């Protein structure tokens, strides 16, 4: 399964890049760094890296719309949130039951995670096969060891992602 590292319009970015245009001067650099780190960790499926970005009292909320799912829609605390987050990204990356061609290996559509400005701050857009499948936004809070992600909101409901699929909202 092909996974692509976090990009901004096909350009590899690091948290120090000042890509955001006019009006984004007040972007919170810590918040952005954490969101990008979380995205990279979810992309690589690394639980320790995910947990490293999370506040001890983190809450994860997923809005799936009417889509039924065996996975829970909320999680509290680092352990449960890490597990649910990685399970969610596994789901997003999978094509569902793979249909193998007559010969050769089954292929899965590529999932990519891109940085976007979501509701005024750094967020993540997850696409599979160029369709938006999730948008993620987060709030941070201080801990003894520095800021960490305190609340994670993920929208996977297709009805709520319609305009993220509109022409021009995704590169290429």
């Amino acid at each position, binding site marked *: 399964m092909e996974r692509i590292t976090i990009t901004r319009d096909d350009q590899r970015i690091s948290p120090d890049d000042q890509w*955001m*245009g006019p*009006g*984004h001067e*007040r972007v919170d650099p810590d918040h952005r760094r954490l969101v990008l780190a979380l995205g990279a960790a979810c992309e690589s499926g690394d639980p320790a890296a995910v947990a490293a970005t999370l*506040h*001890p*009292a*983190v809450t994860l*909320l*997923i*809005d*799936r*719309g*009417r889509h039924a799912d065996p996975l829970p*829609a*909320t999680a*509290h*605390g680092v*352990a*449960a949130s890490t597990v649910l987050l990685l399970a969610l990204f596994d789901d997003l990356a999978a094509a569902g039951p793979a249909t193998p061609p007559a010969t050769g290996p089954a292929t899965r559509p590529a999932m990519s995670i891109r940085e*976007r*400005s*979501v*509701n*005024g*701050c750094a*967020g993540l857009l997850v696409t599979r096969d160029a369709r938006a499948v999730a*948008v993620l*936004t987060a*709030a941070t*809070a*201080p*801990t*003894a*060891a520095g800021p960490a992600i*305190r*609340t994670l*909101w993920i*929208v996977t409901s297709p*009805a*709520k*992602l*319609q*305009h*993220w699929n509109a022409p*021009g*909202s995704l590169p290429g």
Partner: protein
Amino acid sequence: MSHVIRDTDARPGLLWSDSDHRTDMPSVQKGLAVTKRTAGPDADADAASVADAAADPAPAAELAPADDRASVAGQAADDLAQATEVFSAVRRRLFGIAYRMLGTVSEAEDIVQDVWLRWQTCDRSAVLDPPAFLATATTRLAINVLQSARSRRETYIGPWLPEPVNTDDDPALGAERGEALGFAMLLLLEKLTPTERAAYVLREAFDYPYPQIAQIVQLKEPATRQLVSRARKHLAGEKRIAVESAEQRRLLTAFLQAAQQGDVTALEALFASDVVSYSDGNGVKLAARIPILGRHRVAQFIAAFSSHFWQGKTIEWVELNGQPAVALAEDGVVTTALTLTPGDEGIRQVMWMMSPAKLTRVTAASA
């Protein structure tokens, strides 16, 4: 705006191309009929009540005599072009208002569309301040939609979240500042009444003066000021709880770290001088039934069992009585719950809950 519309049967199908939203405007001859995109059951605003609640368009002007029709038709096209220009100039702001009111892009777009239709068909010569007129129509429509949306949101399966909006091109989404735009804020705004929310959004995000807000929400100015003040207090209350919780979590985190390491100095630094440690031990091991008093004694007491107490225990964050707390579990069973009470000087109270009866409540809280 000095033109008078003389021919109400204006040519249909004026195309208004908008890069963000709509392209094909319906014929003016359809009047105020609201065309909705096909949407699921989640997005069925009541068109009739929406039409009623909006600012009334002024009655249409008279028809010109037949021999002036040619020049009048040309003039009507100019009027519409000018109307389009005026609307386009404020369209971002109208969307910014509607989005902050509803927390959804689809419904906000529908409202902007409705206002556009209204703007096309009303007697614009009678409108002294088009941006104000348009903002008023937008806000009132949003208030109405919000009222009918509430019950839908309450019966939503799973967490209801706002529709995320792409702010790459416009970080403040049509407003003076990015107020009331993040998810945390939008979810807090859900707790306000529609009118409170409108007054708050217009004031905090768009800097509208109070007299204008009063006119939009149809209240007297003192009542409007009270509305904004009440909304601010309500939101500040929610924020304060969040901040206090954050502070408590911070202390708990630091406490846990120091306790697990048996670091007496670090523990003392966290405590107020008259800190008390309570336990409702019930005879369970390690539980001192007599409260322990004083910074030094409590620090020593906690450091004393640091080597073995924490082993094999998982630490989970929970909420007890609306306060952040920590649940310690062994093999998935909660055996201890811990809460701290902060004071100005430091932690004033450490409470260890080991009574099984109380702990079932903790397990339920964390589920």
